[in-house]
């Protein structure tokens, strides 16, 4: 039996895309991990932080710190929420040395899902099978704040039946950006349509990403445009067999 891992499924997966969380738990359990779900978890606080409301973000971050205090390892199906904890919590607690020390402990034990598999579990082949032509969208925070680029591609390369076709450019933002998507909805929508052109250009039938928020933006635009392409979180791909 491998070690214990705690899931932080994110509020978005909890409320809107629960199957992503279940898929992630399935993959981890198949690899022999004991998986728990700290029930007090809610949100990482990023919506408030990115909107400029730092004291509100700090309250939510404190709740996160308490909730995961006892967890040894935390796995998250989102690059963006992982980056919020691993990169921005420290900014919130610059004036509180004790909390800051706890934040630094937390930074060491929180992992985005794909990098947990490749770097901690040390696996690339999780035994998945999916007959599908897919393209991969790099979430901005996974790519630029966490430096994740090869891990998901290595994992996808070992999925039986799957063909990965890279879109050009894969690393350009889908236009979600949290409250940006509604504060500047017309602009955000225009960015999403540019992303769709890149996706359609590959001929892929599914778009895979590490972030439910990017996928919500992309699927929302696909659905509006009436395109025959679906979106899948990496966990859903890896749970397929």
């Amino acid at each position, binding site marked *: 039996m491998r070690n214990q891992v705690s899931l932080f499924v994110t509020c978005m997966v909890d409320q809107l895309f629960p199957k992503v969380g279940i898929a992630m738990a399935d993959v981890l359990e198949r690899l022999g991990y004991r998986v728990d779900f700290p029930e007090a*978890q809610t949100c990482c606080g990023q919506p408030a932080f990115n909107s*400029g409301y730092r004291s*509100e973000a700090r*309250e939510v971050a404190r709740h996160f710190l308490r909730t995961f205090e006892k967890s040894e390892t935390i796995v998250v199906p989102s690059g963006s929420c992982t980056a919020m904890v691993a990169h921005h919590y420290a900014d919130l607690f610059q004036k509180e040395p004790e909390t800051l020390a706890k934040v630094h402990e937390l930074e060491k034990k929180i992992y985005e899902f794909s990098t947990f598999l490749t770097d901690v579990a040390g696996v690339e082949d999780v035994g998945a099978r999916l007959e599908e032509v897919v393209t991969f969208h790099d979430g901005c925070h996974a790519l630029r704040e966490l430096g994740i680029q090869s891990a998901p591609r290595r994992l996808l390369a070992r999925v039986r039946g799957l063909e990965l076709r890279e879109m050009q450019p894969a690393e350009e933002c889908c236009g*979600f950006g949290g409250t940006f998507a509604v504060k500047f909805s*017309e*602009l955000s929508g*225009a*960015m999403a349509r540019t992303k769709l052109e890149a996706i359609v250009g590959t001929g892929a039938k599914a778009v895979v990403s590490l972030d439910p928020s990017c996928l919500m933006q992309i699927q929302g635009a696909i659905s509006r445009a009436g395109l025959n392409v679906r979106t899948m979180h990496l966990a859903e791909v890896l749970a397929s067999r």
Partner: protein
Amino acid sequence: MSVEFDRKIHLTLADANLQLAVYTATGRLKEKRKEVTAADVLPEYQDLRSQANALKKHTIDNLDHYLEEFERNVQARGGHVVYCKDATEVSDFVLDLAKKRGSKLIVKSKSMTTEEVDLNERLEHHGLEAVETDLGEYILQLAHEKPYHIVAPALHKTRYDVADIFTKELKIERETVPEKLTMIARAVLREKFLKADIGISGANFLIADSGAVTIVENEGNARLTTSTPKIHITVAGIEKLIPRAQDLAVFLKLLARSATGQLLSVYTSFLAGPRRAGEVDGPEEFYVVLVDNGRTKLLPDRGKRQSLYCIRCGACLNTCPVYRKIGGHSFPWVYSGPIGAIITPQFMGPTHEPALPFASSLCGACGEVCPVKIDIPKVLLELRSDVKKAETREKQNRLEKLAFRIFAWVMTRPRVYEMAGRIAASMAPASDGKWLRNVPPPMNMGPVKAWLNDRDLPPSPSKSFRQMWRSR
């Protein structure tokens, strides 16, 4: 958001020709930068960025020292340094000098700092003729427009647009071949160079240890501007300083690569004082106007003062998915793109356009390409916090503040959070897994309505993750 900002964004997004022109031009610059900074082409690229950042940090941290050193060295070479705190002081200095010398015609090479202080408008108002000699700037001067981009000012103009402008303003027969259009501009500008009384340039770097001004360019117009007229004036922001001439070994490797994808620009000129005995060209009088115009306001803030490290390469504009959609003229000031979004609120004050730091998806592409490693997304986040603190103090935008108070209250109470989630889910319309094009009242308002303008909404699942987990 101001009505003006919203309107400009909307108009730019709706203009298909403009969208294509901007997306294509920035895409080309973006790809060229990528090629010449690739690890196999320039293995030391990341080291150079770190060195450039360290040099700029050191200079800005010791700005007083380097300003004085620069001033001493300019004077030692027979030049003059003039400090101006704002736009009025810059134009007053130029107007006064022009009056004393009886000057009428001024030629200018590209300078964002003079755009920033509206120098042309102020000079023209007092009857002086100031002619832009950079081709892009000249096109825009004829079109009565401000630069669209800090490096490629007429990036949004196609050759047909330029043909229209030249035909109308120069009263010539319509010509659409770029080379021929260039020759037409060249003929007009040569006459201006020969007749000009004063030449005004910007600066890419001010070198403290040598009292010299460095200008990089591709057209040769800066060289003519700075060497032909009897009087030369460099107008530059105080942040353009670098300590030593040898530091250019770092900055020149980065600047042209980041800006246009060139290894070096065609011309790199060094101006050090007026013409000396025995020299065949160069101005008789040499002035360096050092402009504050809000820059010193950034110095006390250790987090945000890195905004002054900028070397105006424009790489952040070319890579920014927002700039590439809304273009340069949607921005509220002459500095556009990500760098404009961080310096405008700091130079002009946070109320100038409070929505500006929010007009970003925080994708981070700007920070990734910045040759001096300004953490633009981090500064944007700090500016957002500044705006919200000011709004809270002024009791503005209270509904949003209340929404985030509720957000924090709910997110720190797991049971309330779960209940709120289930209530929201129960209000969502029934859907067999299909994404929703509309939702009934009262849900079709605020952020939901804004989302639905451009995208469909995910259906609400029958169970939340935690419900599924419990019954697993």
